[in-house]
């Protein structure tokens, strides 16, 4: 088995996980719950081994480096952190119905990584600028933040769906949505995920700045990627303050979570493929 086979399998296991979580939600098949969690954990384990193998393979071909250095590898890691963060939430808060709105993001990331033709999936040597331990710290911390923001968005979507059906008061839908946690619990989890993400995004931006300083002597140069990460950071800072000091909650916070996530996507994807700048490694 090599890493590409394992990572290929991962795409399908996450698809299957997504389907299982959707079945649990739609058909209220609570009994499937434990099996689904076990299956998803095994899928995460397979992916972990896949990432580990890819790391090892890079050493075998003499260009050893952590598998976090191009668009393909970062998408794979993104999917990994989404599942890891989601399973953590599920374990901590014992809520399985939100899986249907979180796990599919990991599947989409893997599917995009596997099937896109925009970037290479090869293990490629590191250009000199990327040979730094700060790079690993930077990528890992940013993606933990992104994963938390992704799950926050899943939660925000649940909130908005449940909220709108509650206000329409249609009975059969509300029975389906009744399996979801209460609005206040979803709202609280959304907020907690964003707080967690904000901390990691902050550390991500800081490690990026320290890395830039060690490579070029400038910790901040307003290149588009840096600037967009700061814009994202501002959006979440606004969200935290609006909630904490002005008592915003519910729908407004849910929309801000989605807005923040769009900004994350643009920082991560849009800047590489739509704008150009120093951080062009994603396009190679």
């Amino acid at each position, binding site marked *: 088995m090599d890493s590409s086979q394992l990572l290929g399998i991962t795409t399908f296991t996450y698809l299957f996980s997504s389907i299982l979580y959707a079945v649990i939600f739609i058909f209220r098949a609570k009994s499937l719950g434990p099996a689904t969690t076990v299956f998803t954990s095994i899928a995460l384990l397979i992916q972990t081994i896949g990432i580990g193998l890819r790391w090892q393979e890079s050493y075998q071909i*003499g260009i050893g480096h952590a598998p976090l250095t191009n668009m393909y590898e970062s998408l794979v890691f993104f999917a990994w952190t989404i599942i890891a963060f989601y399973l953590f939430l599920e374990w901590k808060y014992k809520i399985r119905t939100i899986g249907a709105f979180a796990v599919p993001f990991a599947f989409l990331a893997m599917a995009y990584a596997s099937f896109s033709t925009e970037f290479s999936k090869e293990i490629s040597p590191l250009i*000199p600028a990327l040979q730094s331990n700060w790079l690993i710290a930077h990528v890992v911390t940013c993606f933990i933040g992104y994963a938390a923001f992704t799950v926050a968005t899943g939660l925000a979507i649940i909130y908005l769906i449940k909220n709108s059906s509650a206000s329409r008061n249609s009975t059969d839908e509300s029975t389906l949505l009744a399996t979801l946690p209460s609005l206040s619990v979803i709202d609280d989890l959304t907020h907690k995920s964003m707080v967690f993400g904000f901390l990691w995004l902050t550390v991500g931006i*800081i490690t990026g700045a320290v890395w830039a300083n060690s490579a070029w002597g400038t910790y901040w140069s307003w290149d588009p990627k840096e600037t967009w990460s700061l814009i994202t950071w501002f959006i979440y*800072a606004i969200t935290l303050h609006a909630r904490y000091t002005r008592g915003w909650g519910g729908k407004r916070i849910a929309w801000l979570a989605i807005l923040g996530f769009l900004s994350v996507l643009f920082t991560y994807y849009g800047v590489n493929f739509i704008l150009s700048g120093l951080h062009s490694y994603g396009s190679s």
Partner: protein
Amino acid sequence: MNQSNSVWAFFASVKLALVTLFFLAITSIIGTVIPQKETAQVYIDTYGQNTANLFQIFSIPDMYNSWWFLGLLALLSANLIVCSIERFPAAWAIIKADNLATPLKRLQQMRLRREWTSALNVSDTEATLAATLNTNGWKNQSRQKDSGRLLFSQKAPMSRTGVYIVHISILIIFVGAIIGEMFGYKGSVMLPETQSTEQIYTFRTNEAIPLGFEVRCDLFEIELYDNGMAKAYRSELTVLENNEIVRQKTIVVNDPLTYKGVTFYQSSYQPYQSFVVTVSDMTSAKKIQAILPYQQQHVEPNSDLRFGIINAKTAGQSVTDIKLWLKDQSGVSGNYWLSDGEQKIIEHEGTTYLIAAKQMYATGLQIAKDPGVWTVYVGFTLMIIGLLMAFFMSHRRLWIHIREEDGKTLVLMSGSANKNRGAFEKTFSALADQVQK
């Protein structure tokens, strides 16, 4: 409200913070879409004369240094300062409060509380409760209060300073950036191998800045991967003061050299069509180094030795193999192939030479002097510490009041937490269950 009060209130408001952050986020987008720091002509060509004029008026070509963007950052700073001055004293008062002076009435009204009667008398109850709290990590004090005893215990009161640390860290980062802007510079220099410089040229104005010492490039080399991609750019640098070597270091991208607050970063290079050739006579230990253009002879003065490069193989811009021609007192000449950068010992008509040749390069160094960077890093560290405190720690307080009434010992336990109340409620009931036993 008088004038100065309303100005103060304006700067103290969180609404202003939300508006400022919103505008910072929105306007920051501009510079990611419109290329920055291009020449005026580029904007005219891309956007037309009228739009380009408008851009100049609003400093769009360098928007992150424009008056209005810096103004927004100044507004954010003023907001942070005033807001902190406004709120910190109250937070500090809570941190330092004498919680044993809390009125009994407030304890009776707290949302989180439990009441029971104890089988023991007041002082024995106090002793057992205090001991149980202690073993659970709640160190406590007590005092006579309202015809009873009041016990108090708290955790992490200082966590209330977390948000202030975060806010101040932002100001510290700004201060660091200003220090760097005022007392530092960024520049570059192209330094050919074997040569040295005492000055560099700033990015912004291309003005020469004296370093106060001398930097020499002894060697530049490129290491390649098997597939031909660059693996490492490497410069051997020597720092000299008064012609004496004070520091030597091989720098690569991500590992610069710093001397007297000035840092030299590997950033680019330039190949020449010349060669650095070294010929050493192993017996006399005499070393001759020369920079030679292609097919040009070096004639060593007061000696019969002469040498030159008569052939070279290249791959793209870089030389891979070099053919050295050499003639000495023997009167016989010889040709020797070397790979680029190789050193080789050869026997030439009875004399042993160590020969070496490589294509000549200039190393492109980026130079930064930024005395503010440590201040910025202090700000970074404080920001992370402050966020951890603000997000994951909470100030939790516990009071237990014990009094005698109609021959019974009544106990009231109340608690509060400033954050994460759900988790504290669980801790509170678990603790209450335990102390009641």
